């Protein structure tokens, strides 16, 4: 039984060129679209495509290493989208705040335009889906598990129509995620200092990351709930 070949198999070698050319073309389309667009929110959406092109180029290598490298890339994309969209919102709010007369939409605080996601799935299935996602995430154990379980929490939070206590809740979440991050670092260091306790450190790392990602992704759910279901 040959578990791994000494060299990259032929199949990956032939798949490399189409994959990387596809990545270059997708990247070209995305960048050109960005260069032609003026509205900033559209540029923000289009940068998502640039991230997809990056996944193509990285995954084309076709080794376990490539797979391990895709994950940071994806996470960086996610993180930057989150931070930048928040900054965009802040900027617009500050602009309106500084000169309310110029932009009459300050009235939006007087007459909030109610917006609700009237999707069937939002009212019937979400709790079940959330449960499945969280369960599957725990089953996976590790970074992906954390993300999947976090997705479950997002769905759960989205489906609940409740308002209030966001700040208290967030403080708690931030605390949990900080602790789990420390757990994670300790796990990593333990690996190098004392390899014989690898199982312990693995569990520290994996569970720390699970907690962390789940709680962080849960934050997005809270944000969404605050904004979307305010009626």
């Amino acid at each position, binding site marked *: 039984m040959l*578990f*791994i*070949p*000494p*060299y*990259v*198999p032929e*199949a*990956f070698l032939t798949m*490399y*060129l189409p994959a*990387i050319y596809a990545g*270059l073309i997708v990247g*070209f389309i*995305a*960048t*050109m679209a*960005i*260069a*032609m*667009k003026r509205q900033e929110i559209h*540029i923000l959406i289009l940068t998502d495509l640039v991230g997809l*092109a990056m996944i193509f180029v990285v995954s084309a*290598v076709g*080794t*376990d*290493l490539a797979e*391990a490298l895709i*994950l*940071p890339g994806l*996470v*960086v994309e996610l*993180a930057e989208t*989150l*931070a930048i969209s*928040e900054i965009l919102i*802040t900027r617009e709010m500050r602009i309106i705040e500084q000169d309310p007369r110029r932009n*009459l939409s300050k*009235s939006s*605080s*007087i007459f909030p335009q109610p917006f609700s996601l009237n999707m069937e799935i939002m009212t019937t299935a979400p709790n079940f889906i959330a449960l499945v996602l969280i369960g599957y995430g*725990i089953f*996976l154990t590790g970074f*992906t598990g954390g993300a999947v379980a976090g997705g479950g929490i997002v769905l759960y939070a989205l489906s609940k129509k409740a308002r209030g206590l966001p*700040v208290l809740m*967030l403080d708690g979440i*931030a605390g949990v*995620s900080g602790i789990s991050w420390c757990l*994670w670092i300790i796990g*990593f260091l333990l*690996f190098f200092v004392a*390899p014989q306790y*690898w*199982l312990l450190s*693995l569990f520290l790392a994996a569970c720390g*990351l699970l907690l962390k990602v789940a709680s*962080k992704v849960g*934050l997005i759910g809270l*944000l969404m709930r605050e*904004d979307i279901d305010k009626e």
Partner: protein
Amino acid sequence: MRIGVLWNKLADPKNIPRLFAFSLGIILIVGLIVPMALNPDQLYPRPAPQVQVDEGLAIAPYDRGGEVLSQPGIIKPQYPDNAEALGMITGYMSPPAQWISSISPYFGTSIYSSPGGLIDEILYYTRGFDTILESSILMMSFIIASWLSINYTMNRKNDEKEIKADVKKAINESTQVANEVKVNDLKARSKQLRRDN
């Protein structure tokens, strides 16, 4: 166009992302004429797609041999000397995953597959520093976003009062409110028009 005018345009932050995107796109398209080929001598190689699945291994795409805790699996890292416990957890599965693989012969064939310890081995052990950075990036962006949202964009601590005051003011200046409604209406309509086109 005079070159000074062009240079002045470069000083506007709004134009910079578009300029950057343009130059990046040019370089990407130049990449199509660069001769490219995958070097077959890679680190951490994996078997050809579907080979392991066809052989019916329990954790198919990620089976690298070895036995958890006792016998290391086969991994080809850059510096094997720096990783003493290498390959020990390559076959690692979480307990629920182990149970499922014991009752299902096709555990590895579907999207249902467990990641096993292989990627964990790379992510946490041989390239653990990358993962520290990755999770730090995520953590920092969440700190930024949650700080902004708690302190600013989502801050509704004084909301109730504010809305009440606003409404009072609005009632007092009902003509203004009527105007606002009209303007909002117009704005929404123009937005709709723009969207339809």
